[in-house]
């Protein structure tokens, strides 16, 4: 190992540091689709409400099956309760990334996050 390290000259270490920094910076720079900023709640495709993801609050949408309860928190949002039979949108938990979406199909409700840049059409889990 030390025999190999002896092959490195002082400037080589600077190059390596630069390379590691470049690689390190490229990951957060290119692998985040930006910050989620707003939560959009739709019923039958129509926007019912839009909240910035800054303050914690709750919102209730009434669909054909009953009330869907949405919880907004700083930087994230989730479907807290839904009358649908299989609870897929509730089990999705917190949505944090832009364009992530939770669809409560039986109650015709969807919760999606939007960011400044739209890097994907949608994200589903």
């Amino acid at each position, binding site marked *: 190992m030390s025999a*190999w390290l002896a092959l490195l000259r002082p400037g*080589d270490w600077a190059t390596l540091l630069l*390379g590691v920094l470049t690689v390190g910076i490229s990951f957060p720079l290119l692998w985040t689709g930006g910050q989620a900023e707003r939560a959009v709640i739709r019923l039958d495709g129509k926007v019912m409400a839009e909240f910035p993801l800054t303050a914690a609050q709750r919102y209730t949408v009434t669909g054909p099956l009953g009330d869907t309860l949405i919880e907004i928190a700083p930087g994230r949002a989730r479907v807290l309760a839904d009358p649908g039979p299989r609870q897929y949108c509730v089990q999705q938990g917190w949505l944090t990334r832009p364009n992530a979406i939770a669809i409560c199909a039986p109650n015709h409700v969807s919760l999606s996050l939007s960011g400044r840049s739209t890097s994907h059409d949608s994200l589903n889990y």
Partner: protein
Amino acid sequence: MTVSTIDLPVTRDDRRIARYAAAAIALTLAEATLPSPLPGVKPGLANIIVLVVLVRHGWRDAAWVSLLRVLAGSLLVGQFLAPGFFLGLTGALASLAVLAVTARLPTRWFGPVTASVLAAFAHIGGQLVLARLWLVPHDGVFYLVPIFAASALVFGIVNGLIAAKLLKELP
């Protein structure tokens, strides 16, 4: 049989370049058999030869070896004039441009590892630009930059160290 009237004088330079190019082509072929997790992520072992030639015989010889390697290597694996050939050629040209600069750095401070790492970055950089302009006209290709950059760094270091060791130990 008619005696050929064409006489191609072969100089010592030609023979030396041919020998190095043959070694580089052999490494390219050996590498082509290795499975790759992602097109473009390759060790680039032939660049070890290019680095050795650059230090021993200068940039002109290194450029010959590198470009002969791209040409003959692509012919042998059946990729001549396929997209992969142009990607490799662009990468080789970009790294040769960078090597022209690194060859002027003071050798007391900068060794083959610096040349190798910078050339590896130039290699993927050139390929990505061509891929973005021609093959994937969408910014989605840049999503892969972190993987390419990380592999360029790792293989750049490894190839540079091997080249440095060869330069030290071979007569």
